């Protein structure tokens, strides 16, 4: 018992001194579990997040827009792969993570449980959703677990590119026909509040935050990140000539920040619980692709085994 305490103390001072924890280092079991939960959740978000955008690839209104969207979704798949590998360094196999996603045990970002009925959503998602994600991920480039921090550096670069592309899609709409302007505003109306929800519960109600802050997995509170996002995004909306759907939004000179209205936490918790418009659809889509591909994966392993056997025979014959 005594040894355990001192190991944990040593770990804490190691982290406090801004050292990076590497896969083979000793770490508290709960640190490992927290990271697996967080990294796999992040990976799942990238993967499930492909769906609302893939939805528009075949209908993208110009070839250039189609290419940009394809490249973006490809990046997300790559991020997912990268993050799964990062979680695997903590001893969690990818198959298990996928099974947990499909069973509902593991979560992903709730924002992807909203649908994308409009092309404008391809812009708004890049601008707001990727924007909110970046807010969080820039912080994570300094997270205490080395492989995760390094994955984030690469991912952040691509995400900020996505955000600019998303902003460009919205800008083209706001500079376009009346219908295009309406598309942009309508899309912003739907995505604004769910984007603010992406930062998670308010600090008073965030069960995992305190320990994560102490371990420097997380370095800023949910409310701080949310405020940064609002402060950054309001001028961008103004520049586009779009109205943020919040009557309480006002610049507060004393605080040096925007005040904004109350998030509908009932909606937040309901969507997290599985009651969003697309929760079932997203998982069903993932399960179907996985099941449809089962025979392909089996064939690939069978072939690889045959190849290995042939190789062995050749080398023993030689």
């Amino acid at each position, binding site marked *: 018992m005594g040894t355990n305490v001192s190991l944990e103390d040593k770990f804490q001072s190691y982290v406090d001194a801004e050292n990076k924890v590497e896969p083979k280092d000793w770490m508290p079991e709960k640190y490992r579990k927290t990271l697996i939960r967080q990294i796999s959740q992040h990976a799942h978000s990238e*993967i499930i997040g*492909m*769906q609302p955008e*893939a939805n528009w*690839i*075949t*209908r*993208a*209104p*110009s*070839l*250039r*827009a*189609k*290419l940009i969207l*394809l*490249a973006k*979704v*490809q990046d997300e*798949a*790559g991020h*997912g*792969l990268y993050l*799964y590998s990062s979680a695997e360094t903590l001893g969690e196999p990818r198959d298990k993570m996928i099974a947990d996603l499909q069973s509902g045990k593991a979560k992903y970002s709730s924002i992807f449980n909203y649908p994308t009925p409009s*092309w404008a959503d391809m812009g708004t998602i890049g601008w707001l959703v990727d924007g909110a994600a970046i807010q969080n991920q820039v912080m994570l480039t300094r997270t205490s677990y080395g492989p995760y921090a390094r994955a984030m550096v690469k991912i952040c670069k691509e995400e900020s590119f996505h955000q600019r592309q998303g902003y460009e*899609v919205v800008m*083209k709409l706001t500079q*376009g*026909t009346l*219908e*295009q302007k309406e598309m942009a505003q309508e899309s912003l109306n739907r995505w604004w509040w769910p984007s603010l929800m992406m930062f998670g519960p308010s600090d008073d109600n965030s069960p995992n935050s305190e320990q994560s802050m102490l371990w420097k997995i997380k370095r800023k509170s949910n409310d701080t990140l949310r405020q940064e996002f609002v402060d950054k995004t309001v001028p961008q909306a103004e520049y586009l000539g779009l109205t943020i759907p919040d009557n309480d939004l006002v610049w507060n000179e004393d605080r040096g920040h925007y005040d904004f209205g109350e998030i509908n936490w009932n909606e937040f918790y309901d969507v997290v619980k599985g009651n969003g418009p697309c929760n079932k659809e997203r998982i069903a*889509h993932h399960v*179907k*692709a996985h099941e*449809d*591909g*089962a*025979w*392909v*994966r*089996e*064939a*690939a392993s*069978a*072939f690889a085994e*045959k190849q290995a056997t042939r190789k062995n025979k050749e080398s023993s014959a030689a």
Partner: protein
Amino acid sequence: MAGGWLNGVKRDFTSEEALKEYFFFLADDALMLGQQLSSWCSKGPVLEQDIAIINTSLDHIGRARLLYQELAKMEGGEVTEDTLAYFRDHLGFRNALLLEQPNGHWGDTIARSFLIDTFNFYLFDKLRSCSNKALAGVAEKALKEIAYQAQWSAEWVIRLGDGTEESHHKMQQSINSLWMWSGELFEAHPMFDQLDDSFVRFESLREVWLHKIGEVIKEATLIMPSPELWMQTGGRYGVHTSELGFILAEMQSLARTHPEATW
């Protein structure tokens, strides 16, 4: 030729029309395949292959764009790569019928890619010395991508053919059912009367294609269908299957709803 379902199609081309026709064949093939592959996005059998197929789709659509941009220059006026992709109807499209066949399952998609990628590989290799500089440039740029695509689809044919009993059976079925669309790739065409010899005659690729396809199919422990079987035709003259209407309806819907818009 009269009396069949291609009765009445255009068979006389000026040299200017013939050049455009050649570009349209290649551009529409690329767009159609890129469009079809793109709808695999988020549905692949394993994440790595999702990435691979999106990447391939990107290459095809990228190549289509380059070719449409050249066509837009030839057409002049208000024509752009996007008016060509989004505002032509089925009669205007010149893709081979093979490419509008549905994605089906992974094996069907692989078989379709395998047949066309192998064709594209020999075609674009030769087109690098085309007298049309723009086309030679596209070919130079595209060949590396196409070589990768041809390797990817051939490897999958082998993996599935020589994988499990189920995958073997599925792969054989896929090749058998797509086979009748493969002959069109090698058809002679009246436009060639107006084009110099450096515009690769598709029929000249048939033998080397059959040889390569045969090798891969053999390695995959599959049976090669007979090259003498009845082959479908029509796409190169704008006569298509019902599938194309649905592909275009989906692809063009948003652009056509807002014809005045730029994106």
